[in-house]
C-alpha cells in the first residue's frame, strides 16, 4: 500500500494549476463559480487551450488523443478544475461518445468524429431516455428501420441535455423487434440538422435551459452512422454509462464548495450574520469537509481499482454520497447568505440584481435546486442501492 501522493503527482498538480491560471478566461470562471451553466460559445476559448495542450480527453486511449494519465493524475486534474471554477466542456462528446467510438467505432467513424470532438467543433447529445423509458433502457421505443443505404429513425427522446446546441445525437434505437428487448438496440449517430429532427426546450427548476425533448420524424441517416455491429447497442450503452463511473461523485465540485465556504461565511458576517450562527455554519462546513475528503479517497479507490468490495458497488455508493454532499453544501451556502439568496439572479436576462445582495449570492439557490437532479443523474439513488444489494449481498 502506498496511499500518499508522490512527488511526481505533486509536480503534476502544480503543472495543472499553472496551466489553468494561464489559460482559463476569468469571465468564464466567474460565471461558473456562480453556478450558471456555460453555453458552447463561451467555453470555446478554454477548449482550444486545452486541445493545444493535449488535455481535452483524459479518458481516451493515448493513440486517439488521450492523455495517458494515471488514475491519480486524472483525479488531480478533476480536482484542480473543480477548485479553479473550470466549466465542463461537452461531457457527452468527450467522456461518452469518444470512448465508445475508440472502442467500437469503424475507422471511418473515428476518422470523421474524433478530431473534431477533441477540437470542440462537434458537440454531441445523448439520445437514450424516452418518455416511457427513464432508467429502464430495455423499454426504448424509438425505431430505426433499414431502407437501402440508410437508417430511417422514428421516435421521441426526452431529458436530452444540450440537444439545443449539439451537432449530433448519439441515438439508441430499436433495430430489431423480434429479439428480446435488450438484444435489438443499436447506437446511431444522428446529425441534429437532419430533416425531421425537432428540438423543444424544457425549462428546469433552476430557471435554466439544459434539457430538451427531441422528436425524430422519419430522420434518414447513412448506414455507416451506426456504431459497430447492428444490435450491439446495449453493450455499447453499458460501456458508455460505466466509462465515467466516478463522475457522479462530483468530487471536483465538492472540493470547490469546501474551499470557498469559509470565505462565504465571512461575507455573511459582513452582512449581518450573527456570530453564533456563523459558529454553527463553520461546524457544518467542517463536517462536510470531512465527508468530502472521504469521498475523494473513495474516488481514488475506484479509479485505482482497489480490490475489495466490488467496484460497481463502490461506484454506486459514490453516486449516492456525492449527491447528498452536494445538497448539503449548497444548502449550507444558502443558509449562510440567508435572505440574500431569495432573489432570482439571471444577470443576462434583464432582471435587475437586487441592491442588497453581495455578488456571492448570485446562483446559490438555483444551484441548490439543480443538485436535487444529481440524486437521479446516471441512475437514481434507489437504482444505486439496488445495484449495491445485488452486487454484494443478494
Amino acid at each position, binding site marked *: 500500500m502506498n496511499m500518499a501522493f508522490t512527488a511526481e503527482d505533486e509536480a503534476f498538480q502544480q503543472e495543472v494549476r499553472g496551466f489553468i491560471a494561464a489559460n482559463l478566461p476569468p469571465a468564464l470562471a466567474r460565471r461558473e463559480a456562480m453556478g450558471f451553466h456555460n453555453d458552447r460559445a463561451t467555453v470555446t476559448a478554454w477548449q482550444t487551450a486545452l486541445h493545444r495542450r493535449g488535455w481535452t480527453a483524459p479518458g481516451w486511449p493515448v493513440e486517439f488523443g488521450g492523455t495517458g494519465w494515471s488514475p491519480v493524475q486524472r483525479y488531480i486534474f478533476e480536482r484542480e478544475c473543480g477548485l479553479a471554477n473550470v466549466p465542463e466542456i461537452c461531457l457527452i462528446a468527450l467522456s461518452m461518445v469518444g470512448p465508445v467510438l475508440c472502442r467500437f467505432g469503424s475507422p471511418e467513424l473515428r476518422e470523421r468524429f474524433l478530431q473534431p470532438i477533441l477540437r470542440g467543433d462537434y458537440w454531441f447529445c445523448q439520445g437514450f*431516455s424516452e418518455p*416511457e423509458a*427513464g*432508467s*429502464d433502457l*430495455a*423499454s426504448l421505443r424509438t425505431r430505426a428501420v433499414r431502407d437501402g443505404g440508410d437508417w430511417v429513425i422514428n421516435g421521441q427522446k*426526452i*431529458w436530452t441535455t444540450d440537444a439545443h446546441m449539439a451537432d449530433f445525437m448519439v441515438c439508441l434505437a430499436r433495430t430489431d423487434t423480434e429479439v428480446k428487448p435488450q438484444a435489438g438496440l443499436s447506437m446511431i449517430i444522428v446529425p441534429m440538422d437532419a430533416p425531421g429532427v425537432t428540438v423543444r426546450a*424544457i*425549462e*428546469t*427548476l433552476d*430557471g435554466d435551459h439544459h*434539457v430538451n425533448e427531441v422528436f425524430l420524424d422519419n430522420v434518414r441517416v447513412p448506414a455507416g452512422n451506426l456504431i459497430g455491429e447492428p444490435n450491439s447497442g446495449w453493450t455499447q450503452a453499458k460501456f458508455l454509462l460505466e466509462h465515467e463511473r466516478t463522475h457522479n461523485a462530483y468530487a471536483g465540485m465538492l472540493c470547490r464548495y469546501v474551499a470557498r465556504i469559509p470565505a462565504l461565511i465571512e461575507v455573511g458576517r*459582513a*452582512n*449581518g*450574520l*450573527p456570530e*453564533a*450562527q456563523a459558529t*454553527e*455554519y463553520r461546524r457544518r462546513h467542517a463536517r462536510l469537509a470531512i465527508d468530502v475528503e472521504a469521498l475523494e479517497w473513495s474516488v481514488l479507490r475506484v479509479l485505482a481499482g482497489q480490490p475489495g468490495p466490488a467496484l460497481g458497488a463502490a461506484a454506486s455508493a459514490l453516486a449516492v454520497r456525492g449527491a447528498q454532499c452536494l*445538497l448539503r453544501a449548497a*444548502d449550507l451556502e*444558502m*443558509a449562510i447568505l*440567508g*435572505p440574500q*439568496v*431569495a*432573489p*432570482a439572479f439571471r444577470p443576462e436576462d434583464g*432582471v*435587475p*440584481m*437586487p*441592491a*442588497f445582495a453581495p455578488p456571492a449570492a448570485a446562483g446559490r*439557490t*438555483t444551484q*441548490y*435546486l439543480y443538485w*436535487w*437532479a444529481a*440524486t*437521479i443523474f446516471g441512475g*437514481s*439513488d*434507489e437504482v444505486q*442501492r439496488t445495484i449495491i444489494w445485488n452486487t454484494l449481498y443478494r
Partner: protein
Amino acid sequence: MDFTLNSEQTMLRDSARRYLAQAGGASWQGYAELGWLGIAAPEDAGGLGGGMADLAILAEELGRALAPEPFADGAVLATRLVDRLVVGHSREALLGEMIAGTRRLAAALYEPGRRYELAPQTTAVRDGGGYRLSGTKVLVMDGAAADDLLVTAALDGGVALFLVGREQAGVDGRAYRTVDRRDCADFRLDVTVEADRLLSGNALDAVEDALDEARLCLCADMLGGMDSAIEMTAEYLKTRTQFGQKLATFQALQHSVADLFIDADSVRSSLLRAIPAFGGERAARRKAVSACWVNTFETAKRVTGMAVHLHGAIGFTTEYRVGHYLRRAIVSERLFGDVEFHLARYMEG
C-alpha cells in the same frame, strides 16, 4: 381540547380549496371578492375578525394551490399592523380600502446587510411639520404593486412605523422576482412625509406580533404545499411504469412516501400547537412560532425535495407542478427569519 374545525372553518377550507383548484392562483381582486383580504381585519372595520386558526386554514389552502399573491405579507402582516397602529377616523377608511383590494400595503422592514434585524438603520428626523426618512429597505414582498409602504425607521431612540406612498418623490424602487417567481422590491428612501403618516413611535412589539401571525401563515402555507406534493407523488408512482412494474409497487418507494407523511404530520402538530399560543402570553407565543418555523422549514425542504426526486426527471421541470413547492419552500424560509434565526429565538425564549 378539540381539533375539529367548526362549520365556518370547514366552509372556509372547502370553498378555498374548490375555488383555487378551479382558478389556479387567483388575483388580488379575486382575493378581495372572496373576502380573504378581510379575514385578518377586525369586524368593526368591515373585516371578518378571523383568529389565527382561520388565517392558518386559508394559508394552508393557498400553499396547496401555490397561489402567487402575498397573503401572509399583504393580507395578514400589513392588515394587522394597520389594525393595531392606526388610530382615528382614517383607520376604518384605510382598512376598508385594504379589504376591498383597492389599496395595497407592503411592509418594508428589512435592510441591506442586516438580515432579520428589526431595529432599523433607516432614520426619521423631524422636518417642518413632517418627517424626513432616509435609508434602504429590501426584500419588500409585493413592493412594486403596493400603493403604500409600511416603513420602520429609527426615531427618538424608538422604532417608528410610517405609511409612505410608493409613488412619492424620493421613493426609489427596484422590482425583481424571487426564485419562486414572486414579486419583490428594494427601496431607496429619501423622502419627506406628513406628520400624520407616523403611525406609531414605538412599533416594535406590534411588528413582532404581526410578523408572528404572518410567520405562522407561511408555515401553514408550506404544510399545504407538503401535503399536496406528497399526494402528487403517491399518485405519480401509481401511474408510472419502470422495469415492467408500476413504481408504486416498489416497497422502497412506498416507504419513502411514508417517511414524507411522517415528517409532514409532525409539522401539522407543530402548527396546531402554535395556534393556541396566540391566545396566551407573548414569550410563549414567540417560542411556539419559532418552534413551528424550525420544524416546518427544515422539513419542507426535505419533503418537497424528495417529492421532486421521487418523480424523477419530470419533477425538475417548471412545466410540472411538484418542483414549485420546493422553490416556494426555500424562498419562504428566508422571508421572516431562517431556521437558525428561529432556533436561536426559540432558545432565548
